[in-house]
């Protein structure tokens, strides 16, 4: 969500502190994903203070059969930065989906999205990531 581990850690501890305070006062919300929702808003707030990327229309390519081998060449931190550069709520959708910890219903609940919106953001995300991969690690016949 942030593409910066120190900021992510700060948000993590702030969220935990908030949870601990609420628990001490017996005011923990009953909704299951409160903690994740809270962390998401803190991430968005934290990233608002940063320099904002220019709103560009990114290229989109169809997912290629050889995409897996292109992805394997990626540095994980580069991918984190790429995802954190996406506008929200697409950023939230991609982060939650590729975290592979939530099913689609939980993502819809957490990110407050409709199924059609989540689907659109994922399709766009895959297409944009494929375009970025094609530019970064061109395979024969793709560049």
């Amino acid at each position, binding site marked *: 969500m942030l593409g910066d581990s120190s900021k992510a850690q700060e948000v993590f501890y702030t969220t935990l502190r908030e949870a601990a305070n609420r628990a001490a006062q017996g005011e923990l919300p009953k909704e*299951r994903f409160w903690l994740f929702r809270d962390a998401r808003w803190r991430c968005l707030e934290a990233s608002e203070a940063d320099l904002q990327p220019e709103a560009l229309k990114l290229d989109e390519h169809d997912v290629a059969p050889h995409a897996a081998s292109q992805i394997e060449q990626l540095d994980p931190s580069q991918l*984190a930065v790429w995802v954190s550069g996406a506008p929200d709520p697409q950023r939230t959708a991609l982060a939650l989906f590729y975290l*592979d910890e939530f099913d*689609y219903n939980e993502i819809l609940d957490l990110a407050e999205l409709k199924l059609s919106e*989540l689907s659109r953001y*994922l399709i766009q995300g895959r297409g944009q990531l494929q375009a970025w991969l094609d530019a970064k690690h061109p395979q024969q016949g793709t560049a």
Partner: protein
Amino acid sequence: MRRLPLLRRQRALLTCAPISHDRSTDRSMRAAVARADNSEEFVSQQNFDRAVAEIVRLIPIPPETAEWFSEKSLAVGSKWTWRKMARNPAVLAISIAVVVITGVSVFQLLSRLNDFPGSATARKLLAVAASTRPVMLDPISTEAGTLSDLFFMKHGLEHYDVPAEFADSRTIGCRVFEDEESRRIAQIWLAEKRLQLFLFPAERNPKTGVVLGFPGWRYVHQEGWVGAVTERSGVCFMAAVRGNEKDLEPYLSNATGK
């Protein structure tokens, strides 16, 4: 690329298909995945997603943060405990209702167990005893046992006999009155411990007219008063006093000793 012949919602579901096959999904997702499982487009998407998820897992997490998640699921459902369940408002309300219903049922059962033919009348007479003042009775100072003749001669009441247990007690007054069901009741006030004695017709079977008798002494209670009731020859006798059963026990135990 070949478009899948799927409904719009199913297409949308397919784009959100779980990356891990072991992740549980709902029925509509399972149906969409089953329908598209071998399509080239879906296989490419799954391979792409799996590869991205693999890289995401490798994104470095600071060790201080990582230790929070060691061998723990991110989204753990709340644990079921007896304490939590007991605090659930619905469970609490049902429990209270069950306790109240059980309490009332037990109370009614115990009341029924203590019931005997004439117990309802006896309770009403305990209320009469509580509201009676000595001036309301005709003054008479004699032994209670001798009043049987008075009741028979003056009021025509047969078998209105004071039992031997109380026959020797001194009286300070007596009266005969009718209750709301026009039954004739004899009331005697004793000098001792402000005891009051009542004689009233025993209950009868409404069809056969047979007296509904019961053996020995039975206790009834009403608003701080206690009565010991027995039935003889179709007439019930009740000794009433403000207090509890212990206040009447000496008289009744004396009687059994005689």
